[in-house]
Structure formats: structure tokens, C-alpha cells
């Protein structure tokens, strides 16, 4: 039997022009989350509890695309989703389309532990959240100025933008040009193929 091990991520597909200070910010958050998990593991916490603890921290910090700081829908709202799985007996829980649950990963954990199902979505997930008494907040809590700007870029570029942390530039127009220049593809097709959907 080996010792404990842990890994965290904050998303893949990083804009090559990401400013150094934003890269540093990201590394500090990742380090903080690793250390949070490590001290829990050193105290013999179980893997499933450490996963929930660390993802909650990542959801609460607005830096990455989850919880507060989530990407915005075409309507400028936030719809979040999460899942968790315990390798022992392969138990799992998932939620989609939640708009007021402060920590979706904890609701997914409750689906796994406190419901007869593996997945609840939209109004059913929100009703279960109220029944379980998890912390609820207004949808505005999840919306950041950065992401309002990113949504504007995406609309000007008429595309679905990945979670690029596009460097803050002088004006949205210039940044929009950057976004349009970025030939973002999805499944090998130009992203614009998906936009009309």
C-alpha cells in the first residue's frame, strides 16, 4: 500500500498571453488548496471527505470557473454543475443546472449520501438543496466583473469561449479582437459551428 496522494486542477486550455501576475495568483490558489488537502490527509481524513473539502475551497474562490467566478450563460446567468465519486463501492452523486447553491460539490455529495439517486438537475436539485438545508445565495453572488467582460467578448466574437483568463486589456473592443483572432476549435471544428445551437 502506498501513502496518500492528491491532485487539484483549475481547468485546461490556458491563454498563452496570461499575465504573470494572474499566473502567480493561480499558483497560489492551487498551493493553498493542496496544503488544505494535505493537512486533512495527515489527520487521516478519508479520500472522499478531502475531495469535497478541496473542491469547496476552489468553488468559493472566484479565480477559477466554478462556484463564485463561474462562466456565464448566453443570458448572463450562472448555471453550475458538479459530481463526486467514491472509489470504494463506486458510489457517486451529481447535480446540474443549480443557480443558488453556494457549493455544488457538497450538494452532489448529499445526492450520493442522502438520496436514492445518483444525479439531480435544475429545479429538482434546487428543491433537494432546500430540503437538505445547504447554504443558498442569490445568483448574483456567482457573477464577477471579469466574467461579465468575458461574456461580452464571447458575444462580440459570436462564439462560445473556453475558460480562458484573457489578459485584461485596455478596452473590450481590443480584447474582442483578440478573442476573434483566437481560432478556438471544439472537437476539431471551428467553435462558430456550435454557436448557432
Amino acid at each position, binding site marked *: *500500500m502506498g501513502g*496518500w*496522494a*492528491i*491532485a487539484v486542477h483549475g481547468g485546461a486550455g490556458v491563454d498563452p498571453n496570461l499575465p504573470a501576475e494572474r499566473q502567480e495568483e493561480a499558483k497560489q490558489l492551487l498551493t493553498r488548496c493542496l496544503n488544505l488537502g494535505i493537512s486533512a490527509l495527515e489527520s487521516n481524513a*478519508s*479520500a472522499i471527505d478531502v475531495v469535497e473539502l478541496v473542491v469547496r475551497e476552489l468553488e468559493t474562490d472566484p479565480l477559477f470557473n466554478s462556484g463564485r467566478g463561474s462562466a456565464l450563460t448566453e443570458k448572463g*446567468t450562472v448555471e453550475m454543475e458538479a459530481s463526486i465519486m467514491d472509489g470504494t463501492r463506486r458510489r457517486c452523486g451529481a447535480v446540474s443546472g443549480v443557480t443558488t447553491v453556494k457549493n455544488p460539490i457538497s450538494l452532489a455529495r448529499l445526492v450520493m449520501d442522502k438520496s436514492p439517486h445518483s444525479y439531480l438537475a435544475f429545479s429538482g436539485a434546487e428543491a433537494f438543496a432546500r430540503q437538505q438545508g445547504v447554504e443558498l445565495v442569490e445568483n448574483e453572488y456567482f457573477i464577477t466583473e471579469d466574467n461579465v467582460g468575458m461574456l461580452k467578448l464571447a*458575444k462580440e466574437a459570436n462564439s462560445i469561449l473556453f475558460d480562458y483568463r484573457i489578459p485584461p486589456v485596455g478596452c473590450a473592443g481590443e480584447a474582442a479582437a483578440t478573442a476573434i483572432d483566437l481560432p478556438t476549435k471544439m472537437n476539431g471544428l471551428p467553435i462558430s459551428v456550435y454557436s448557432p445551437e
Partner: protein
Amino acid sequence: TVGCVVVDREGRCAAGTSTGGLMNKMVGRIGDSPLIGAGTYASELCGVSCTGEGEAIIRATLARDVAAVMEYKGLELQEAVDYVIKNRLDEGFAGLIAVSDKGEVACGFNCNGMFRGIATEDGFMEVAIWE
């Protein structure tokens, strides 16, 4: 998208993923993160959390595939991660982190950078963005 994978001292693996999805996505769109077997998977052998182009990850059942090639092809964790990133994504772009019941940790991605941090009980720790 954010994720965490852990194996504890008892060799138990777990995985979790959480996201807001894609900027400017359609209302009601569901990505890979909540889909067990696509964005998130854990078994007795390993725990996996994925991020990237959700539609590609779903079609590849990427997270489950890491466990499957470990089970059926006998690959070790990093080999399994490299194999699925190389062979399962078609033209899609994605990244993933994984742990095994032996206390190993691995990550792989075929896109431009991935925000990740990894640590093991023997003192190894790495936080990185680029290759």
C-alpha cells in the same frame, strides 16, 4: 472547471469536479463535469477528474477510460493517462488529473496549459500551468 482527486492512506480513491461550464453557453447545457464516467470517475483502482472541451470528453468517456485501460490493458496510471489523452480525444482538447490506489498521481493534457497541483506523502509537490 475545477477538480480534485485523492487517494488516502487506506488506498481509497475519490474524485470530484465542479464547473460553471462554457462562457456564453446555451441555458440548460450540460457538460462533462457532472457526468460520471466522462468528467469524473473513481473506482478501487483510481480516481480521475477531467476538464476541457466537454463535448469531446463526453464522447470519449474520458475518466472511465483511464480506469478501463488500467483494468483491461494492465497499464500503470501515467501510462493510462497518456494513452487516453493521445488516443481517445479525436480532435478535442482536454486535460485530466488522476491518482491510483498505490499512491501514484498523474496528469495529462493535449491543450495549451493546465492549472494543476500535485503532491504525494513522500514529500513531492508540484504546482504548474504549462508543459
